[in-house]
Each structure stands twice: as structure tokens, then as C-alpha cells.
């Protein structure tokens, strides 16, 4: 306590110091004398800075002892100008290499791009805000090499997954660590319904039947982001330790810049979106075997649309067959069902700085209405940041972000509560919507629907929903003290605390497991506290630059979840637990701690050779006591050939060429509470869907031994990665190329390996297996044309990753990640991560399909079904993916500036399990089932008859094929998810500054953005191959009754005062 008081005393004392200040003015211009608007002026060694105004002039107040100013402008070589006695400084910048730009690396340390020994890519905050995605992860899509993002569906507030350099953990988290302003933050997806497992296999509602929830990166407001650095490899992330084994997304929020007055920015955006629907058949009525059924008559209900062609169908007013009636009316049910979604995003910020302090305050709000009614999202975000130089040596900063995110979602997935069954499945001759918005009841109070056993979707979305309200606080406090020249002590404390209060309601009368209603209240309290203290030392010798760092991290994470469910409601539409006849409560509390000690040394020789060594030791609470300490090193280096080799120096074409290599190890700890062997847990007897005996049952409690066996001998996991890279600038930096080859292997993985059920358990925690990801990633940036009034930039990323599951564990060849046992998404030894597994057709050794050639058989001409073997029927991992972006900029300060930006996202390969077709083809509603008259036929490809000859049997496309034979083996449902997507097009116009010169405005710009305007997925019959029922969780590629993807249009206005 005494120490603490002293520290406070110290802080107070320093605030009282007074700084001598002076003001520097000047003009920044290009070589030809053109003034440069918006060039950045920074006081060296501080974060104090300003930008030049319209005539290129600036004014900045600096401490008396400030040494130099650093002047920079995109596309120009930055200059460092010593401050002499003069207070006027005119600077000329040359167009050229921008290698001296600082890049944010691990622990927020800024390094010259040139000195990097590993791959880092940056995305500017403008780009992230521009495409108006709600979820920051989607905003990265297609922009960074080595990074794959996948959205999960079209609901407002839905989740998105980000994977860097492939999946390296079997069942653990595969997504990168998110770090905001130096503080690690949570990006987990906590499933609904009390589901307590990351892959949806724990107790509680399975995402298979209820759909995913959102990932918590959704709380991050893109408006506040200055820059985002993606640290991809283990060498780049080594200092972050275990949790960064899958890469790091480093987010730096905006900071106040020095100027003559506070800078106020206001941006507003309105957008709307439409569902991207698959095609449906439009020719046949509800019915079976060609006979018509009138779904309006409760006695005639049926799920199928195998009725007669509508063009011959005459019905009476009630919809019953009537030869003297009128032609039957048809409806476009899916199109009617989805509404136009909208979003309104407003953001206001005030920022500024003087020589010693800077601040940034912002408030933003995003209101979004999804394409499904009652699905909406409302996010409020407040950010306040303040940094000040308390003395010559001491700088402190503090910041807090508060976010309130309220998302209401409707139930998706394979459960009967899911609304999608009857949206896609409705016959065209049935009016799903009815005459008024709530026309989903019959007179007797039952649901009005064309079939039994499913809900009217309007009823479902109006009455059943999950609301998640998150209050999230991200405070941080930092202090840096310069002990001596080059020696600094830094401490950064941060926390990420959020409360997620979820309310779910399912009204009485819902067809499903709980016909008499259900509600739950799910309170999740997630806390993370993190402190990093580092000591850095920088020394410049003659030819050698030295950077040393030692540090300590303490990280404490806890989740307290209490889930209370009430079923059997008495009073309709009264959603309070007191209204439930049976109440069950489930607690799920976890806490884990990690202590890390780390050090790094970077040695630079003559600014062309750099070597970085790092080492880190972690102590984790989740490992057994004897194995809880583990150490892992990394080494990486880079050589700038254009500086090192005399003959390459000053080359006109190749201005910069760097090669780099790195090797790193990363250790990783275990999931929490994985070391106890026999644990008992409260019983819940049932099959998870139809019903269950809830305990306490009539006052009697029940416990069962856990199906998962812990392991008291776990050791840390090990990841090893090597990386080779190359970076080049050509033609005066008009061309920038960066390429990396990596090879990462994770061994000794800790995961729940399935065991034979007959051993009395379902899985056991093991240390085993090996998974490799090998790949290349390229980034190319070209500026083919650059004139005063026109610039054309092209950027491209290309990634090819090959995943190999080298070993699982003894006797285990596959592990399920998601979906059903058959079909599902699995890890399969020698086949890879995320393969589709399910029933398949009988094949001979050559891989040819054995065809049933018995003319009496109902499956004549179709493959024989393999007796009882499930196998690999697809692979969800893409062969490669690429992003191609281009920017055209027209105009200048006098005309204003038009910018046209386009981003094309390409994915080759990557199968989807389209389980929708299992049902929809059976129902006869998909477009392909329109071909049903038997006139057309096909020969099953690659088939062989029993006499060994090639299959030549024509199988007609008829009702029997689609309804009975299609989907006999799940391999019928695998579709290639390759796509080309115009992810974003933005046209923006910045008003001429000359026009604004005498107004209160500094900048005004307007923009129009289109998202996903074009999607070509030629082999996929669903809405959008970028969908996943499991949200951002590991079971990707499982497509079943997911809200369709959207096409979005946005209009925005940005004003700076």
C-alpha cells in the first residue's frame, strides 16, 4: 500500500511540471512546388502531430527540447527534419518508397516496415468503415492474404469466422487473438440455449437445431479504428504466447492529432439489403404422385409439391379441384417472406491534441433491421481516450470503450422451431403470408399451414426469438517511463468485461419440443484482466541497432454463466419464469490464469540485416501442476538485398528487395478443467430434441458420470512454423509484391478424442495427433497510372493452404466438428480438417460407382448404396482463394476527388453440405425438381454395371428419382462452393477543399457502396456458399435452413469540421 501511495505521489508530482513550448510553422510541398494537403507532421519520439491544411501549411507547438519533426505522406518518402533555432520549416517530399512507415507489431511496438522479419499486413480503418459491414471480420474479407473470412448467414448481427493460415487446432479455437490498443479482447461465440461447448456438442441447445449466435468482434465499431495489423505467423506473434498461435488481429483505435482546433467528424450512413434467394420450381402444385392437394383444407395437408402442373389446374374459391373453376393462383412465398433490411449508422467524434496531450472521443450508433422481420440489431459504442506526457520521462494514457449491443435473432437450423423449413418448402399454390401480417392462425387457434408438423414461418419469427443484450467495457491504462536514454519501462493494464443477458421466448402453440411454451434467461458474465509490463532498451551503435525487450504478462479470464429455463407456460405471452411449471437451472463457471515471461532481441546491421530472437515461458492454470510451465523460442531474420549487395543499389527498376526467414515454436495450454478424470454432472435424460426428463424430476435430483474423461497427465501442445518470405518494390514503388511460404505443424494436440462407446465414455482428453498447414500467400499492389488528376491502383491477394491431418490418436480416424453423425463435418486422418463425412455409394477399387442394373429394382440405373460404411464425401477447405481490388481516383483539390473502388473475392473449391436439398428435393420445391416429367434423363457418371461395362442406363428425372432416390446416400448433397463475388463496390466523392476553404467544414465526402452485388457460385444451388449453421465455430460448410445471404446498398456522408 505504501508503494502504491508513493506511485500516486509520483504521478501527482509530475503533473505539476510545466513545459516550455514553442510553435513551429511551415509548408509541405512536392518537388514541383505543389502544396501537399493532409501531409502528416509528427514530433519525433512522441505521438504529437498535426496535418497540413489546404495550402500545405501547418502549425504545431512542440516542447522546447523536441529534436525533430517527421513529415510523411502516402506514396512519398517521409522525411525527418531536425529542429533548429528557426520556427519556420518548409519541407519538400519526394515521391517514392514508403518503407520507413511504422507498422504496429506484437505488443503494440512500432517497427519500420523495412526492418520486419516476418509477414504483417495492414488494413486501414477507412477501408474497414467504408464497406459498412456490421461485423468487422466480414470487413476484412478478401483484403489480406493468408486470411479467410466466412460469414454465417444473412441475419442482422450474425457471426463471421476468420482463419489465418488454415486451421491448426483440432477442436480448440482456430481464430486469431484480437488485441485492441494492446489489450487482448474476447471474440468467442457463445451458443444459445445454455449450450456450453465451443463446437456445440455440450449440454444445451445444439446449433444444429437452433443456429449459431454472434461472435463478439461484432462489438467492435469500425468507425473507431485507425488501423488493423494482421500478424500471421508464429514468428510475428511469438511474444503474445499461447493464445496467439492462430495469429493476431491488432487493432489500433484512432488518436487525436494536433491541430489548431478540435477536429470534429460526423459520418452518417443509410443502407438497405435484400435477400439473395435460391431458385425454386414454379410449375407444380402441392400434392403427391401428381395428385393435387389443397393445403388450405386441414385434412389435405401435405409437405410435398408433387402435384399436377399448375397450368392445367382449375379450382374453386376454396382451392379445391373444380373443372369449372378458375386457374389456380400461385404465390412467391420466399420472396414475400423476406423484407428489405436496413441499417442506419451514425458516428460522431471529437479529437485533438496539443504538444503534451491528446484525446479522442466518439459515439456511434448502428441500427440494423434484418431481412427477416423481428431480426434486428442496435449497437451503441462510446470511446474515450486520453494520453498525456506528465513529465519528460513519464507518459500515461487511459481509455475506455463502452459498447451496448442488442441483437434479436430468430431460430434457424434443423430443429422444428426453425422458421426456414416452410419458407423454402412452401408449395407455390399455397398462400403462406395470408391477408394480413398476422394471418397465421386458423379459427380454432391452431397454426394455419399447408402441412402438419412444422410451424408457419410468420408465426415463428413473430413469436419466437432470442434477444442478447451485451454491455461491454474495455478499459485500459498505460504508463511508460523513460528510465534513461533508450531504456523505458512500460506497463499496460486492460480489461474486457461484458455481461450478456439473453432472453429467449417460445410461445405456447409452437410446434416442436415445447408445444406449451418455453423461455430462458441466460446470463453470461465474461471477464478478462490482462497486465503486461515490459522493459525496453534501444541502442544505436555504429553499424548496429539493438532493440531489447523483457516482459511479464498476467492474464486472468473467467466466465460465469447461469442459465435458467422454464417450460410449460400457463399464461400465454407472459414471459416470466414465474409463469413456467418446470424450471431448471444450469451453472457453468470457468476461470483460467496464465502468467508469461518473455524477452526479445532485435539486432540490425547497417540497416540491411535484421535478426530477431524471442523466447517466452508460460505458466498456465489449465495444465497439471507438473507440466504447467513451458518455454518456446523463435528466431527470424531479414536481409535487404538491394542495400546489402552493391550491384543492386540504386537500381531503377528494383528499388527494394528483401528476403526473410523465420522459425518459431508456440506452446499452448489445455481447455479449462480438462485434468479431472471422473466428474459427475446433473442428468438430463433424453435424445436432445424430442423431449427430456428434466432433473430435478418431481423433486428428485439425478446425476450421471460425465461422458468425457479428463486427463491428469496433459502436456502443452506444440506448434512449429517455418516461414520464408520475399518483399519487393519496383518501378519507384509503383509495384509492391510480397510473398510468403509457410509450413506450420501442431503436435501433441489436446483434444477430446472419441473412444469406443463400449468403454463407458464417449471421449477422452488426450495429447496426440499432428496437423500440418502448408501454404503460400501473395500480396501484389500496383499503381499503373498516377497523374495529378487520375490514379489507378490495383491490389491482389492470393492464398493457397493445404491442410494435412497427419495423425489423430491411436484407433481414432475421425472426429466430428459439426452436423449430424451422418452427414457431418469431420476431421479425418490423411484427409484433412473440415471434410464432409456421410453415407456414400458403393464403389469398386478403381473408384467407379457400382450401378444397380436390375430392371425390377426401384433404383435401376442408380448407384448401389454402400452397406454400412460412411466415408469422406467432400472437403470444405477451398483449394485457394484470392481477392482482387482496384481503385480509380479522379480529380484534385479543385475539382474534388472521385474514388471508385471494387473488391472481387474469389474462392476455388471448398465443398458445401447442402442439407436443404435433402428436404427440398423431397418436397419437390427446388428448381432442379421442376424437371420431373421423365422426358429428360441422365446416366449416372463414372458408373459401372455388374458385368463390368460402363454404365449406360438412362435414369429419368421424375418424381421417383427426386423424392425417393435422391439423397439415398448423403454424397448426393455435396456441392462445390466455389464462387466469384463482387464483395464491394464503392463510389465516393470528396468535395473540393477549395470550396470548403472559407466554411466551417474541413472535409465533406459522400459515398455509395454496394455489397455482394454479384455472386457467381455455379455449382451451388443454395443462397450463398458463404454460410454456416455453426456461425464462427469450427463446423464450417454445413448448410441447412440458414437465413439467406444478402445484397446490400449503402449511402454515406462524412463531414469533418
Amino acid at each position, binding site marked *: 500500500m505504501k508503494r502504491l501511495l508513493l*506511485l500516486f505521489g*509520483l504521478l501527482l508530482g509530475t503533473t505539476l511540471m510545466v513545459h516550455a513550448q514553442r510553435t513551429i510553422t511551415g509548408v509541405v510541398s512536392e518537388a514541383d512546388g505543389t502544396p501537399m494537403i493532409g501531409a502528416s507532421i509528427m514530433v519525433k519520439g512522441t505521438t504529437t502531430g498535426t496535418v497540413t491544411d489546404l495550402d500545405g501549411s501547418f502549425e504545431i507547438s512542440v516542447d522546447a527540447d523536441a529534436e525533430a519533426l517527421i513529415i510523411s505522406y502516402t506514396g512519398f518518402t517521409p522525411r525527418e527534419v531536425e529542429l533548429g533555432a528557426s520556427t519556420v520549416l518548409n519541407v519538400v517530399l519526394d515521391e517514392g518508397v514508403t518503407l520507413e512507415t511504422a507498422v504496429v507489431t506484437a505488443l503494440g511496438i512500432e517497427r519500420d516496415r523495412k526492418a520486419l522479419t516476418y509477414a504483417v499486413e495492414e488494413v486501414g480503418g477507412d477501408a474497414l468503415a467504408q464497406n459498412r459491414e456490421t461485423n468487422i471480420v466480414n470487413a476484412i474479407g478478401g483484403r489480406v492474404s493468408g486470411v479467410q473470412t466466412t460469414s454465417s448467414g444473412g441475419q442482422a448481427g450474425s457471426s463471421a469466422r476468420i482463419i489465418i493460415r488454415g486451421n491448426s487446432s483440432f477442436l480448440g479455437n482456430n481464430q486469431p487473438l484480437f488485441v485492441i490498443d494492446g489489450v487482448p479482447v474476447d471474440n468467442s461465440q457463445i451458443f444459445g440455449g445454455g449450450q456450453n461447448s465451443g463446437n456445440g456438442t455440450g449440454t444445451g441447445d445444439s446449433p444444429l437445431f437452433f443456429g449459431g449466435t454472434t461472435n463478439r468482434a461484432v462489438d467492435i465499431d469500425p468507425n473507431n479504428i485507425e488501423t488493423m495489423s494482421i500478424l500471421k505467423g508464429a514468428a510475428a506473434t511469438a511474444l503474445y504466447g499461447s493464445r496467439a498461435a492462430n495469429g493476431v488481429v491488432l487493432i489500433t483505435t484512432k488518436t487525436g492529432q494536433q491541430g489548431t482546433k478540435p477536429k470534429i467528424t460526423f459520418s452518417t450512413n443509410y443502407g438497405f439489403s435484400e435477400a439473395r434467394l435460391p431458385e425454386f420450381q414454379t410449375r407444380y402444385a402441392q400434392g*403427391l404422385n401428381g*395428385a393435387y*392437394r389443397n393445403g388450405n383444407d386441414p385434412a389435405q*395437408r401435405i409437405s410435398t409439391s408433387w402435384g399436377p402442373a399448375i397450368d392445367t389446374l382449375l379450382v374453386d374459391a376454396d382451392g379445391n379441384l373444380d373443372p369449372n373453376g378458375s386457374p389456380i393462383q400461385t404465390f412467391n412465398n420466399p420472396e414475400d417472406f423476406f423484407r428489405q433490411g436496413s441499417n442506419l449508422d451514425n458516428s460522431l467524434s471529437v479529437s485533438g491534441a496539443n504538444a503534451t496531450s491528446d484525446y479522442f472521443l466518439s459515439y456511434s450508433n448502428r441500427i440494423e433491421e434484418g431481412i427477416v422481420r423481428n431480426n434486428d440489431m442496435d449497437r451503441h459504442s462510446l470511446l474515450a481516450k486520453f494520453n498525456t506526457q506528465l513529465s519528460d520521462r513519464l507518459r500515461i494514457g487511459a481509455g475506455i470503450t463502452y459498447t451496448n449491443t442488442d441483437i434479436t435473432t430468430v431460430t434457424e437450423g434443423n430443429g422444428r422451431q426453425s422458421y426456414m423449413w416452410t419458407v423454402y418448402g412452401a408449395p407455390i399454390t399455397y398462400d403462406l403470408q395470408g391477408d394480413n401480417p398476422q394471418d397465421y392462425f386458423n379459427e380454432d387457434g391452431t397454426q394455419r399451414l399447408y402441412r402438419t*408438423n412444422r410451424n408457419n414461418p410468420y408465426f415463428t419469427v413473430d413469436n419466437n426469438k432470442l434477444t442478447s443484450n451485451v454491455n461491454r467495457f474495455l478499459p485500459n491504462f498505460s504508463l511508460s*517511463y523513460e528510465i534513461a536514454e533508450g531504456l523505458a*519501462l512500460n506497463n499496460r493494464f486492460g480489461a474486457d468485461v461484458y455481461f450478456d443477458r439473453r432472453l429467449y421466448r417460445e410461445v405456447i402453440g409452437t410446434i416442436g419440443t*415445447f408445444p406449451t*411454451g418455453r423461455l430462458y434467461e441466460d446470463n453470461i458474465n465474461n471477464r478478462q484482466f490482462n497486465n503486461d509490463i515490459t522493459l525496453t532498451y534501444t541502442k544505436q551503435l555504429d553499424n548496429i541497432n539493438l532493440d531489447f525487450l523483457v516482459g*511479464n504478462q*498476467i492474464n486472468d479470464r473467467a466466465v460465469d454463466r447461469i442459465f435458467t429455463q422454464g*417450460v*410449460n407456460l400457463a399464461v400465454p405471452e407472459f414471459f416470466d419464469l414465474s409463469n413456467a411449471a418446470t424450471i431448471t437451472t444450469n451453472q457453468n*463457471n470457468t476461470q483460467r*490464469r496464465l*502468467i508469461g515471461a518473455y524477452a526479445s532481441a532485435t539486432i540490425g546491421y547497417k540497416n540491411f540485416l535484421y535478426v530477431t530472437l524471442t523466447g517466452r515461458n508460460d505458466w498456465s*492454470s*489449465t495444465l497439471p501442476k507438473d507440466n504447467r510451465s513451458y518455454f518456446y523460442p523463435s528466431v527470424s531474420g531479414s536481409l535487404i538485398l538491394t542495400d546489402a549487395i552493391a550491384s543492386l543499389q540504386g537500381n531503377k527498376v528494383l528499388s527494394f528487395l528483401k528476403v526473410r526467414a523465420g522459425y518459431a515454436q508456440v506452446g499452448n495450454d489445455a481447455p479449462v*478443467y480438462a*485434468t479431472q478424470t*471422473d*466428474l*459427475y454432472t446433473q*442428468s438430463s*435424460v*433424453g*435424445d436432445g430434441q*424430442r*423431449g427430456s426428463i*428434466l*432433473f430435478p*424430476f418431481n423433486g*428428485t*435430483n*439425478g*446425476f*450421471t458420470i460425465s*461422458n468425457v474423461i479428463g486427463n491428469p497427465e496433459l502436456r502443452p501442445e506444440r506448434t512449429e512454423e517455418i516461414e520464408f518470405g520475399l518483399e519487393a518494390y519496383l518501378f519507384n514503388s509503383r509495384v509492391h509484391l510480397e510473398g510468403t511460404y509457410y509450413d506450420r505443424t501442431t503436435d501433441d494436440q489436446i483434444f477430446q478424442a472419441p*473412444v*469406443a*462407446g463400449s*468403454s*463407458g*465414455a*464417449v471421449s*477422452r482428453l488426450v495429447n496426440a495427433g499432428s496437423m500440418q498447414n502448408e501454404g503460400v500467400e501473395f500480396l501484389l499492389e500496383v499503381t499503373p497510372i498516377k497523374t495529378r488528376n487520375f490514379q489507378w491502383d490495383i491490389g491482389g491477394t492470393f492464398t493457397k493452404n493445404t491442410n494435412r491431418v497427419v495423425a489423430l490418436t491411436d*484407433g*481414432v*480416424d475421425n472426429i466430428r466438428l459439426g452436423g449430424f*453423425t*451422418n452427414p457431418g463435418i469431420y476431421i479425418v486422418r490423411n484427409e484433412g480438417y473440415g471434410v464432409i463425412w456421410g453415407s456414400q455409394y458403393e464403389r469398386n477399387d478403381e473408384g467407379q460407382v457400382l450401378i444397380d442394373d436390375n430392371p425390377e429394382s*426401384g433404383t435401376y440405373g442408380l448407384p448401389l*448404396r454402400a*452397406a*454400412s460404411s*460412411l466415408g469422406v464425401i467432400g472437403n470444405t477447405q477451398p483449394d485457394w482463394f484470392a481477392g482482387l481490388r482496384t481503385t480509380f481516383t479522379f480529380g484534385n483539390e479543385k475539382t474534388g476527388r472521385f474514388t471508385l473502388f471494387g473488391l472481387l473475392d474469389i474462392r476455388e473449391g471448398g465443398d458445401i453440405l447442402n442439407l436443404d436439398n435433402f428436404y427440398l428435393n423431397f418436397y419437390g420445391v427446388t428448381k432442379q425438381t421442376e424437371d420431373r416429367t421423365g422426358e429428360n434423363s441422365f446416366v449416372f457418371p463414372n458408373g459401372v454395371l455388374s458385368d463390368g461395362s460402363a454404365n449406360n442406363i438412362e435414369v429419368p428425372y421424375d418424381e421417383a428419382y427426386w423424392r*425417393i432416390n435422391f439423397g*439415398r446416400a448423403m454424397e448426393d448433397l455435396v456441392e462445390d462452393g466455389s464462387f466469384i463475388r463482387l464483395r464491394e463496390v464503392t463510389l465516393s466523392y470528396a468535395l473540393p477543399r477549395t470550396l470548403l476553404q472559407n466554411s466551417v467544414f474541413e472535409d465533406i465526402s459522400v459515398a455509395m457502396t454496394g455489397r455482394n452485388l454479384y455472386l457467381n457460385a455455379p455449382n451451388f444451388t443454395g443462397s450463398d456458399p458463404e454460410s454456416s449453421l455453426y456461425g464462427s465455430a469450427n463446423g464450417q460448410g454445413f448448410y441447412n435452413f440458414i437465413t439467406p445471404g444478402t445484397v446490400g446498398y449503402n449511402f454515406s456522408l462524412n463531414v469533418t469540421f
Partner: protein
Amino acid sequence: MRYLSYIFILALSVGLVACDDYLDINTNPNQPESPGDLDLLLADMTATTAYNLVGGGNWSRYGAQWMQNIANNAAPPNNDTYRINTSDCNNEWAFYSYAGVLINAKKMIEIGEEAGQEHHVGVAKILMAHNYALLADWWGDIPFSDALLRENNGRPLFDQQELVYTGIQDMLDEGIAALGKESPISLGGGDLLLGGDIAAWARFGYALKARYYMRLTNAPGSDDQELSTLALSAIDKAMTSAADEATFAYTSDPGQENPWNQWVVKFANTIQMSAFFIDKLQTLNDPRLPIMADTSVTFGGYLGHANGGTPSNLLADISNIGAYYMDADLDIPMMTYVEQLFLKAEAHWRLGQTADAEMAYADAIRAHMEQLSGNGELGTVISDTEITDYIAANPLGGLGDLIEQKYIAGFLLSAFESYNDYRRTGFPDDIQPAQNADVPVIPTRMIYTDTEINNNAANVPPGITLESKVWWDGD
């Protein structure tokens, strides 16, 4: 410089928190390492047995479909037409049995023996034997002597069904013996089947013994005379009336209804009466028909759906299962007293004790009819005369009559036993495989499931199909 040293001290003191206590927090706060009161395990075991092994689960559902008590009035293919995937019975194998009732029973036996809680040990052994019999009846050879070793053996060896059956009888004997011992703590509220009645548990154990003796009448090398004698001696100590039945009391609370109600009424909806069953009852002029089935809404009379046939135009065309069976509150016995009476009749019949057999046969039919009487549509009452007439019209002329009557009485609630009897005796012999079926016969067993094939491939017997036979099914 002095300030500096304070900062260092602060930094160090933060760093040095790295002591072990700080990290010793890896104990799960939500799951205990001991089950505490054995009644907690007992509640889980009795509820799982009732809900997943007997009342619900695929043993009963497939049993009732394949024995054509009921039919799925929906477009085939489905499990009515024997479309069975290796994943379909994972729950039955792993979650309900081995990693469910069986492992909890094993833990209860271990802990109970240590604590001298013999009554818990006894019940655990009876439930374990019952569950092993379900597994063996469906899958033939199963892990038994090598099973349930958890972390000590993740890939158990399979035992032959014959050996499992020997083990089941031993286990029942041990269970009954343990129930007869002194126990400082007896069963408490966790007994959701027999309310802690030790004597009733022993009688249930004997009834199961009789069932499993008679199961082997057609097994290779078996002596049905000896088995019948053993069964009769067990029946002497078994249930004395339907009041002795181990039953689970379902309620009308959502999720806690009779599993047939959950599956047929709340979930599947297209499950209706099978044509075979309706036709059989109509042929026999059986007074139970109005209780077992509702009339067709469309046509008025009783009409079943032919298993695997083209779905009827309207669900309303086909008879639904009778309200008595669909009642959410229906209490479902683990083994009916009626079944025990039929077992008794069969044993006497096989031993040539015709008069005893006829008496037990008549008792069985009477007991069942009396049980149903007053429960049907419009409170259908089966009068004493009707019962007597029915028995007179359907005398015990042979094993076929006996098994057919057992089949009728076993409607829905003992359908898996009907399926076992069918395999064992071939009766009812007029049942035909479903139309549009994937295999040309009524499946003679279940295929092994994914959880075992995937993780214990070396030991799972190869080449098993739905047409393979289990050991006791003769050749």
C-alpha cells in the same frame, strides 16, 4: 532515481505473483468428483432405462414398426422400410447404454460394495443385466467382460452373445442376492421405478430371468425343456400381479410425457396404425381394437397403413394409435405382468403341461383385456363375457397361437419383445416385409454403430448386415 526503484519494486511484486497458489484453480466448480448419494445415480439410471431403453429409443420404435404394430404414413424410404444408417443407433449403443445406464451402474456397484449399500448394488446389477440383454438381443456379440473400463481400455474386445447371456443370468442372481442382504442405507427417492420396494425389485429380477431363459429356446445347442423349467422356477418368485411392475410415471408436463406421446403426437405425426395389425385384430374380432386404434376420420372404420406403402391421400384416412397409448400420463412398465404370464404359458406348453399352459394363456389374455377395458374410445369396456368368448374362440392350439396373442398384448409397449419372439419363434408367421424395403426381409438384427466402428474398428465383428442373425436366432 529513487522513484525509479519504487517502480521496479512495483513491477517485480506484480511479476512475483507468479506463485503456484495463483494458478491452482483448475478444479471444476460445477461438477463434483463424487456422485455423493447413490440415489442421485439411481435416479439417472432408472429414468434412462424407462425413457430411452424401454419407453422411447429405437428398440421400441423400430420394434413396433418392424413388427407392424404401427406404420409411417409418409413417403418411403425411412426406417419403416429398413433404411438404417450406421449412425441411427449411436445413442442407444453409447449414450443410453454403455456411457449411460451401464457405466453408472458399474460406478454404483463399486461405490455401493465399498460402502456396504447392498440394495443399491442389487438394483444396479439388475438394471445392468437388463441393459446388456437389450444390447445383446439387437447386436449379438457385444463388449461385455472387457467393457466399461473407461480410461483403462478405450477399445474393448467383443464377447459372444452366448457368453453375454450367461453373464446376464449371473448378474441377475447376484443382484437378487444383494437385495436380500442387510444394507445400512436402502433405496431412497432416486428409485423412480419401484419406489424403493426391495422385494419388488427382486421379483422384477426373477421375471427378467424367466424372460432371458426363454429367449434361448431356439439357440444352437439349447434345451428348451431345461430352459422352461428354469423359467418356471424363476416365475415362482417373480411378479405376482401388475402391481409389481416396475413402471415410470410420466406426466403431461412438456418434455416429460410418455415417450410414445412425444414421438408420435408431438414429433413424427405420420406414425399411424399398421394395416397388418388392424387386419389381424379385425380377423380375430378382437375387442381391444377400439382401444388400440382410433377409427379413420375419413371413412369411419378401422384402416391401417401398409408399412412402406404409398402414403394415403390424407392422414385422416388412416387410423391413429388409440388414445390410451398416446396418453401423456401413461405409466410404462419395464416388463409387463402380462408378458410374464405368456412366458409362463410358453414354458408349460414346451414342457407338455398343457392344462397349466392353457390356464396361463387365458390369464394373460384376460389380464391384458382387463387392463385395457374402460380406457378406449368412448370408454370402451370389454366385458367379462367378451373376454371369455374371445379366449374360447382363440384357444391355445400351438406355439403360434401363444406368440400371436403375446404379440397382440405386447402392442407398442412390449414391441421389442414381440420382435425378439418373432426372431426366436417365427411368429406371427403371416407378417410380410414392408413394401419398397431396402432389404427383402424383416431385419434380423441391428448393424453396429459409428461410435464403435470408428473407434474400435479392430474389434467390431466384420460383415454384419441387417440380414445377419444373432446367436440365439438359430441358424
